[in-house]
């Protein structure tokens, strides 16, 4: 059997004893998070958008997990939550589409969100769907890392 | 009262359902079969009455697709074939009861259901109004008879079933379907049967190819070399061999042949514009060779099967002459051979049930313990040979006339030689049974009794039918004549 007995301590990413790493991560993670949110909400004026923001946010989680171990990371962000938020992002995206449809427009026709100011409506629509994208991407990236890390 | 041809299809189908539902009660089940057979005969008779008054009952099925529709239309030749099937189903059903019970067969419900389905397909073939319909029912007949062939489920039965399906499916799918489709493409999509044919405007080269495809495609006509399925099919229980492989299936083949010559090519085309001599030669070859093969068969049913192969080619020969007399003789032979051959098979089965004997060489002296059976056998044999006063004489007479009338009078010699061969392979059987002493070393002949009563009733009915057909051939004659437009 190549599988060692379960109780035995084995070195891995669960080991959270590296002071340098923990301190560095503690310093970095808030900035990563803020940066991620910035990219998310500022996507229409600068480079970026939901996809990039999602990846950046997930990388914050992954960094935390690499430094503190997957189990502690999961205590922070349980799988129960990511399992829900991952589809929820798509629900938000498609939901915007359905809302525009119900308001009398075509699918994803943002103009009907604010028919008087269509340019504004466009911005709103894009903001919402980008939020959906960000949510899904971040959750899925975290999920993929979790599932690989837990094997 | 007008009766549509679709009713003739529906009655056996309903019968099949009824048989399935009453499967657990054998007596009721057999009653349903008989009732169904009687109803079918009544229905076909009503249709016949209409046809004789000059009507052409017609039924158009749902449009299955652009240019593809099931159409039933009664024409006299088909009616003759349907009559033969419907009439003989009754004695055959009576016979089946005796045989299947006497023989303790398994899966009897499946047997009767498939039988009814086969009859439904027969009616479909007989009344088909266009080539797609003909093909559809030609295939369903093959399919519905397959479980009957392989009924026993023994390795040998399964093997025979495979040969049966293999030959019939490969000829019909490779040649017949191709021919039908090609005919449709060549003449602009018209595939209905019409007096005088539908291929008049088609290029003669294509027409010759189509002729080959149609002839090879009808494997059920058991022309050599596609005849192997018929001897193989003899593993089936005898009622199957009797009705299907003396009447329904094989006659379906030659009937299709007649119908295609008459209504697809048209007699003029067959005679003058298609190179059909090879078909004639093939038929003559099959007649002679299979008669000789039959001579050497010791197994009774195999001998009868090869006899059938030979007799079917009489009809093909008649069709291939492309003359009115040929079609008339062929059409008559459909009916005459059917009644004669079914009698022979009934007898063969009765001998097997009652005496357990399957070989010609075992039959010495059997006439003493089974006089009725062997008497009927003699009647059937004489009808097949074509001796008066039995029905077979008429058809052979007209076929002979047709050959004399054609450009190939030497074909008459073929018919004559074949008749002699018929005598040689059929007559020894009743002669041995009646005039030779029973074998001394064998089991006590006194232990052998006559076959079960239903079997006897059935074979007497068909033997009498053979006699009747000699003295009153009017109906059997009238229908082909009608089909030929009174051209006599």
């Amino acid at each position, binding site marked *: 059997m190549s599988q060692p007995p379960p109780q035995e301590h084995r070195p891995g990413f669960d080991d959270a004893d590296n002071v340098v790493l923990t301190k560095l991560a503690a310093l970095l993670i808030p900035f990563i998070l803020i940066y991620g949110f910035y990219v998310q909400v500022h996507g229409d004026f600068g480079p970026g958008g939901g996809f990039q923001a999602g990846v950046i946010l997930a990388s914050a989680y992954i960094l935390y997990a690499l430094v503190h171990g997957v189990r502690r990371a999961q205590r922070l962000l349980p799988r129960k939550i990511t399992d829900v938020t991952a589809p929820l992002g798509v629900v938000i995206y498609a939901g915007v589409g359905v809302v525009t449809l119900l308001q009398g427009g*075509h699918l994803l026709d943002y103009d009907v969100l604010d028919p008087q100011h269509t340019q504004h409506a466009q911005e709103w629509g894009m903001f919402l769907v980008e939020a959906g994208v960000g949510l899904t991407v971040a959750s899925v990236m975290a999920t993929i890392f979790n599932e690989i890390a837990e094997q | 009262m007008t009766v549509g041809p679709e009713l003739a299809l529906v009655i056996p189908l309903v019968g099949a359902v009824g048989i399935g539902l009453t499967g657990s009660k054998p007596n009721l089940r057999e009653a349903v079969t008989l009732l169904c057979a009687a109803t079918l005969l009544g229905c076909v008779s009503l249709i016949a009455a209409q046809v004789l008054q000059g009507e052409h009952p017609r039924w158009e099925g749902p449009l299955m*697709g652009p240019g593809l529709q099931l159409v039933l239309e009664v024409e006299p030749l088909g009616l003759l074939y349907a009559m033969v099937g419907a009439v003989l189903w009754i004695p055959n059903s009576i016979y089946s009861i005796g045989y299947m019970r006497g023989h303790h067969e398994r899966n009897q419900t499946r047997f009767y259901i498939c039988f009814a389905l086969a009859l439904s397909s027969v009616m479909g073939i007989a009344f088909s109004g266009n080539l797609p319909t003909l093909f559809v029912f030609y295939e369903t007949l093959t399919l519905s008879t397959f479980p009957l062939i392989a009924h026993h489920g023994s390795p040998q039965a399964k093997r025979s079933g495979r040969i049966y399906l293999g030959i019939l499916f490969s000829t019909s799918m490779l040649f017949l379907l191709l021919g039908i*489709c090609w005919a449709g493409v060549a003449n602009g999509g018209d595939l209905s049967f019409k007096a005088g044919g539908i291929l008049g405007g088609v290029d003669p080269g294509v027409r010759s190819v189509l002729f080959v495809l149609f002839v090879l495609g009808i494997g059920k006509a058991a022309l050599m070399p596609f005849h192997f399925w018929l001897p193989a099919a003899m593993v089936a229980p005898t009622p199957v061999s009797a009705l299907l492989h003396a009447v329904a299936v094989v006659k379906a083949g030659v009937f299709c042949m007649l119908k295609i010559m008459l209504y697809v090519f048209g007699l003029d085309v067959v005679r003058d514009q298609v190179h059909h001599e090879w078909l004639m030669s093939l038929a003559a070859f099959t007649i002679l060779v299979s008669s000789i093969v039959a001579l050497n068969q010791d197994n009774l049913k195999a001998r009868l099967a090869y006899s059938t192969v030979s007799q079917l080619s009489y009809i093909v020969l008649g069709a291939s002459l492309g003359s009115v007399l040929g079609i008339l003789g062929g059409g008559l032979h459909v009916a005459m051979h059917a009644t004669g051959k079914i009698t022979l098979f009934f007898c063969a089965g009765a001998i097997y049930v009652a005496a357990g004997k399957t070989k010609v060489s075992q039959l010495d002296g059997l006439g003493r313990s089974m006089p009725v059976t062997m008497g009927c056998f003699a009647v059937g044999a004489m009808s097949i040979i074509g001796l008066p006063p039995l029905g077979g004489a008429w058809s052979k007479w007209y076929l002979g006339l047709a050959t004399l009338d054609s450009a190939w009078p030497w074909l008459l010699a073929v018919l004559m030689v074949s008749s002699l061969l018929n005598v040689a392979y059929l007559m020894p059987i009743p002669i041995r049974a009646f005039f030779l002493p029973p074998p001394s070393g064998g089991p006590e002949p006194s232990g052998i009794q006559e076959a079960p009563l239903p079997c006897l009733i059935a074979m007497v009915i068909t033997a009498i039918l053979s006699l009747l057909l000699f003295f009153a051939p009017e109906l059997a004659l009238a229908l082909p004549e009608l089909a030929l437009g009174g051209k006599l």
Partner: protein
Amino acid sequence: MSGLLPHLPALIVVTPLLGGVLAPLCGKGPTKAWALATAVTWVTFALTCWLAVSVYDQGTAQYFVGTWGVGSAPGPLGAKDWTGIVGIELRVDRLNALVLCLVAGMTAVITPYARLSVAKEIPHDRLHFFYAVWLLCLTGLLGITVTGDAFNLYVLIEISSLTTYILVALGKSRDKRALTAAIRYLFMGTVGASFLLLGIGYLFMCTGTLNMAEMATRVAELRDQRGIHTAFAFVLAGLSLKMALFPVHQWLPKAYAYSPTAVSAFLASTATKVAIYGAFRFLFTVFGTEFSFGVLDANSLLIACSCIAILYGSLVAIRQSDLKRLLAYSSVAQVGYMVLGMALANREALTGTLVHMVNHALVKGAMFLAVGCMIYRLGSAKVSDLNGLGKRMPLTTVCLIVGCLGLVGVPLTGGFVSKWYLVQGALRAGLWPVAVVLLVGSLLAVLYAMRIVEPLVFGKAPEGEEVREAPPSMLLPTAALLVGSLVLGVSGSLKTGLIWTATGDLLGVGQ
């Protein structure tokens, strides 16, 4: 309600998409997500039928997603103003209306079946994700069919492919070989999708648009450009991989054989059909018949490949001892039939292809479902397991036999009708050897069908264990599909209606 009518093209895609992402929110357990999936598939099916009827009556339905329909941009640099379709267009004509109904209908029938079958083959704690992926796969297939935008088609191919890989790999709990089958499929599928993307890229490079209708008019002007020729080659190669056309069919048999049975039925009856629809769309609409078959003579290549596919697939199928593999190889052959009819490109042949598409979906789906019934009770489905099944599972047996008849194309089943038209098409094209190949193919089908039917009818059951008939919730969908195929064989309303007019549209001839 009628207010929804113009939005149907979008709704039929959004409904399963929303269903797919809501399914995992239903929570664990075998029932809730399944119920949602069933409801969603039936609603989708109803919507597609509604759409098909309206398209049949009123002609092509067009739908612009989002705010942007036809727009124009002023031309700088002295160039002309540009006017064209800005966003993504959904376009439903009679051809894709038919495919939409087929895909949605098949899924609607198979989903109720999936409950028991899938619960036995996949761990219960993640069934809700299974149904999510299942519905997303449906979304992808419907999206491919409904779209009028080349890049959107690629995006949806991506979603349907990815979901398919997952669904196939899920067969691992029954047979570990599902994983290698899925990986193999993933490699080949990715290559195919990449080729398709390259082809669409080249098309965009040459035409400056992603809308298929606009592409079509531009391609007609640019038919001598090398980029167009390259695009054609890449698109054709990519689609051939997706269709599993010989010689790039290798992913199919294993993928179908080892995936969970409901998935096999689902994929066999929808995925390849949609790929073939894609080929129709590109060859006939985007590139145009004249270019595809006249300038580039793609039909010779396609006819050759499909003829080999028919013979090869059937011959290999005859030698299989596992029923699912047998059916899978038969699918390789059947794809050959459909591509053959497409390549012959006359009205009869196209009708044959479309009828065959519908019939094969129904029959092959039903066959896989019936095999699923066997697996549900017996745990395996080998040819040797068929012995005496008639006594133990009579209804399943009837389904298998009727399915075999349909596969062979016996008269009065839909398979006969398609064969009829295909042979006529081949003869009309003047290619009688092709007609012979078609017929030989169906003879070979008789052989492998016999391997199934013979033991069913005449075999003797092994001694011992008691086996019960499959539950009604599995038998009913199976029987429903078979009844569908029989109705298809006898009734002509679909064929003379939607299919015949669709082929007329494709070839640009009047009714």
